[in-house]
């Protein structure tokens, strides 16, 4: 029965197929074919739509990944540029420092000599340093030893013992160091080292209107240091009893222990 039904259906379908084949040339069949083709492609597009969306999404992900890689490369370039920028700034600062050096030379009418700090020893850490310039280079006792920081000339110490090739310098932090100074260019006193980081300023008048953070500079009265060299900032003030005046504690702008080279201000004979 089944075989017979299959045979009947086969004959029917074959007949339909043959008829369709024969009718292929008709205009109406061509129109129907075009309509079916249109429907077929619309259906295909409908089925492909989610896949296309997924493809488009994956393409975007790829683009994002490329952008991520590019971003990493750009970050590396930025780092290189930042390093170059730092170098440029350093050079700019160096140029500024050298310009100030020239100006300072004019200002003091003296001669500057650069020196390098030799070995420092723990037992004389606050007291002194040795520099690689001596009598041969025109160094004498009690010459100002300076450094430059933030475009400011800063007191490092003074020469003490001068040898042929090197000189011992008494540092500003040494208890042997004394220097005439003033606060805000008005109130005079004497800066002393204390064999520790903190400096001390004595002999300030009772009327001195000073406060923490005020600048201390050399006054030029001691005969060793010219006026206007920076020493440090006031960190504490103490008023003495019986109108004996005021004392102040200070910190240096830049401690000599943190530098590697100094400048010696030679005096003209």
């Amino acid at each position, binding site marked *: 029965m*089944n*075989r017979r*039904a*299959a*045979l009947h*259906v*086969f004959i029917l*379908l*074959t007949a*339909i*197929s*043959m*008829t*369709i*084949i024969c009718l*292929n040339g008709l205009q109406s*069949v061509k129109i129907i*074919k075009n309509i*079916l*083709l249109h429907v*077929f492609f619309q*259906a*295909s597009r409908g*089925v*492909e739509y989610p*896949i296309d969306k997924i493809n488009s999404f994956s393409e975007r992900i790829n683009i994002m990944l490329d952008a991520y890689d590019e971003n990493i490369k750009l970050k590396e370039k930025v780092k290189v540029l930042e390093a170059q920028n730092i170098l440029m700034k350093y050079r700019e600062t160096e140029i500024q420092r050298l310009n100030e050096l020239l100006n300072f030379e004019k200002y003091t009418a003296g001669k500057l000599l650069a020196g390098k700090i030799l070995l420092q020893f723990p037992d004389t850490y606050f007291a002194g340093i040795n520099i690689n310039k001596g009598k041969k280079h025109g160094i004498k006792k009690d010459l100002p030893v300076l450094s430059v920081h933030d475009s400011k000339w800063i007191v490092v110490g003074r020469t003490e013992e001068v040898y042929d090739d090197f000189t011992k310098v008494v540092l500003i932090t040494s208890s042997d160091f004394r220097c005439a100074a003033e606060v805000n260019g008005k109130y005079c006193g004497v800066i002393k080292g204390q064999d520790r980081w903190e400096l001390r300023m004595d002999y300030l008048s009772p009327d001195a209107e000073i406060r923490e953070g005020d600048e201390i500079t050399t006054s030029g009265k001691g005969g060793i240091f010219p006026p206007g060299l920076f020493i440090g900032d006031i960190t504490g003030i103490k008023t003495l009893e019986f109108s004996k005046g005021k004392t102040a504690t200070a910190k240096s702008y830049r401690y000599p222990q943190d530098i590697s080279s100094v400048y010696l201000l030679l005096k003209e004979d």
Partner: protein
Amino acid sequence: MLRVLTVTFIVQILLLRYIISGETGINLFLIVTIEMALIKGSLYGEVTGFITGLIEDVAHMGVIGSRALIRTLVGFLTGSLKGKFAAGNILFQFIVTFIVFVVHGIFIYLLRLVFGLPPSSLHRLFMNAGLNGLIAPLIYSLLKGTDAG
């Protein structure tokens, strides 16, 4: 059967174009026709073949009805093998699919000659037949596991 045809249609459109491109490809419609015929007999085979053939006729923009005619014949003849051999045997699946694909390809070749269309390459025919023969057991198992079985 409608569900099987719908799934076949979607899978044919969606997946197979990503697997193989060019003239070499998997013809899921023909494999399904063969497997339906082997599982359920000539009646289902020829109806499946007629419908899938008609869809392909529309898709290929050739002579409408030509593939439907050949597929109907393929479905009917393959269905006559039902019950005569161990249909679940992988080797049998491969051999039947291979032969049907070759015969189907030759029919198409001849039909194209009759209608004055450029003939398709017979070199790729055997490659296609082998490839589809390898897929056939998998499709058979899937169809067996569904309502079609």
